[in-house]
């Protein structure tokens, strides 16, 4: 080792100890809070808890108030300020009467069916695509994609502007694509890769739903599926697909590939490998993603607003529809409906909140 003269030790200024007010904010040791700090921290935490919880409390007591209690100005404590009354809740259970809440049952059922089916479909399709993009190499030709887009534009123009039947246009477009794909593919050799496909799928989330919803409305109108469960289920599936693909792709990519390779050496098919090896390993991610999608579908408003009128009406639409009207807003009734609408998701959130934060984070961290 070369001789390096020991540098003259220039004594550093010792760190000055905190003085005055700052001493209050200096912890006694690492891993503890200072006295001043803990007052501030707990103060703010409690304050924010109050801000978060108070609306829930207000909803709950409003659902227990008689109209007169509501209109007499604010009252806060049941039994002290006002006498709680179950009239709004009784209406809900009173199916015989033409009470405002008896109509809640159908939307509730619709919401359950739509949220669960679309979530299941979305997670299945999305997870399969995510897995494929994480493991199988795709190289679609750029030329073919161009042909496809052009044909789609032509089809849309034909259907929309010239009134050609949707089915005929789609069939002709499909046939043309098959014919052209081979010949064009020969000239445009450039292709896109998995990363591009992944980006394309995830980027669909940027699309504001309002951009797509009018043509979707028209499509379903053409095939007579407006105001059906299936129409909303399919639309929700696509709306939430980017989230599933995004989160699940990261989960799958983080699973060591050796396991799958050894399964395939043992003779398992891709499908078997996916369902028997990969899915069980990605359980945590699947659970988080499922929950997230379920909540999004349960709470969705705009698409349902376009696609449902009566038969397939969901809860958010019901609530939004109760806003206003001749008798003014029935605050107590609305409070009841909102409570029964948020109870299932809150329950799930309480059970699975660790999962969710983990699932979201994995996606966010890897970006």
């Amino acid at each position, binding site marked *: 080792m070369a001789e390096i003269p020991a540098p003259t030790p220039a004594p550093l200024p010792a*760190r000055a100890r905190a003085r005055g007010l700052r001493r209050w904010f200096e912890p006694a040791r*690492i891993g503890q809070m200072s006295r001043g*700090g803990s007052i501030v921290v707990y103060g703010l935490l409690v304050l924010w808890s109050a801000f*978060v919880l108070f609306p829930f409390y207000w909803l709950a007591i409003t659902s227990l108030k008689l109209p007169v209690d509501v209109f007499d100005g*604010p009252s806060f404590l049941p039994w002290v300020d006002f006498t709680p009354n179950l009239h709004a809740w009784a209406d809900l259970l009173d199916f015989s009467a033409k009470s405002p809440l008896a109509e809640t049952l159908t939307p509730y059922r619709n919401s359950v069916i739509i949220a669960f089916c679309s979530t299941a479909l979305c997670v299945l399709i999305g997870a*399969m695509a995510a897995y494929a993009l994480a493991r199988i190499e795709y190289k679609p030709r750029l030329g073919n994609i161009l042909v496809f887009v052009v044909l789609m534009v032509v089809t849309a123009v034909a259907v929309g502007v010239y009134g050609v039947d949707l089915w005929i246009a789609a069939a002709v477009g499909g046939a043309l694509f098959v014919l052209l794909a081979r010949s064009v593919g020969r000239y445009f050799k450039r292709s896109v890769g998995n990363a591009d496909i992944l980006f394309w799928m995830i980027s669909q989330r940027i699309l504001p739903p309002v951009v797509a919803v009018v043509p979707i409305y028209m499509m379903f109108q053409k095939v007579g599926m407006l105001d059906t469960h299936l129409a909303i289920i399919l639309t929700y599936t696509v709306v939430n697909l980017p989230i599933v693909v995004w989160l699940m792709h990261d989960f799958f990519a983080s699973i060591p590939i050796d396991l799958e390779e050894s399964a395939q050496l043992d003779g398992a098919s891709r499908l078997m490998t996916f369902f028997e090896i990969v899915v069980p390993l990605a359980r945590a991610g699947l659970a988080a993603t499922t929950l997230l999608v379920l909540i999004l579908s349960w709470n969705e408003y705009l698409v349902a607003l376009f696609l449902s009128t009566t038969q397939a009406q969901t809860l958010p639409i019901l609530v939004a529809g109760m*806003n206003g009207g001749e008798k003014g807003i029935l605050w107590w009734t609305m409070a009841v409906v*909102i409570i029964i609408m948020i109870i299932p998701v809150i329950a799930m959130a309480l059970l699975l909140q660790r999962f969710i934060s983990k699932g979201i*984070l994995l996606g966010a*961290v890897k970006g």
Partner: protein
Amino acid sequence: MATRDGTIGGRRPGEDPAAAVVTTAALRSGRLAEWFDRQARTLFIMPAVVMILIFSIFPLIATFILSLSRVRLRGGGYTMRYVGARNYEKQIFGSEQWHFLGTFEEVSVLGWVVTAAGAGLLAWWLVKYLRGRSGRVSVVGTIGRLITASVLFGLTFMFAATLFSGTRLGTLGVTLFYVVVGCGIQFLIGLGLAVLCAQPIRGRTFFRVVFFLPMMVTPIGIGFTFRMMADTGKGPFAPIWQWIGLGDFAWAVNPWTARAFIIVGDSWQWIPFIFVVLLAALENVPRDLVEAGHVDGAGGWQIFREITWPQIVPVAATVMLIRVIEGFKLVDLPNMMTGGGPGIATESMTLHSFFAWRALDPAQSAAISYLLLFVTVVLCVSYFMLVVRKRAAVHG
């Protein structure tokens, strides 16, 4: 199959050959399974691709065509006629300008100053890039930055011409207000809460669960609840309103209080999302880095500023991207809390588009939604390329 036999036989020399034969026979039996396996490439990805093509790409194209047409509804059907960019013209320069961009009157001095300052900043930014000091200059990069700069300049001018002249904002301005101010506030509070919860506190699980709750609640429910609570006569804060002499003040009548209130509701719902992600990111910061900071002599603020914050910046940038993308779609809260009023003061672009649709004008609705798409894509892609990507590159 031959290769597979070979592989199995070859990889396991010790195994009884008869056993290998049995395995292969079992594999051969499922003809359908075999077909499936060969098609797996396609089968795995096709459902997603087809769904996106039908319900996302096709509508995207269709909406664009729709936005270039005039639509007449007749009886059960409709007729479409190509009118070029007429619909967009109407929104940006024509009779709907007041609704989309805001009421333009004479631009005030302040407005001009702001416009000039914005133009100067953007020009400086572009020149800095083209000088190539900070990295390679590419054609795509230049074009992208030009688009970003022009859109930002347009928006600056729009705000200068409306906000600073004291005239009304259009739905574009309102939407941007929600996105920029709302998301900014939400980020700051979410980060603050995450930092608080990362302290060595008791009851962390309790706070974490409580803070997370609003994310679950449907925006429609939030809209209703906040409307109820904001009522100056019957809401819980009525005594306070009366005490400060605003007993019969109606927040929904003043554009700014109405917008502020929508942001409060929106924040109540979205801060949990930012909070949860940032808290997890904070907890993911390697402990030894923080400890090294302590030993190196850093104080609490220095450790946050120099060590913790740079570690969570990539996550913060990504979470804000998600938040901003969702922010552009805001519709339920204004619809529920104010119905877009007073006037158009709280109307977001999605709501604007929906109102146009409800007024049986699908072409205008399509044009507005395309304008929303354009602004969203330009701003989000710029943010992604210039902030998120760059951060990711630094952190490798």
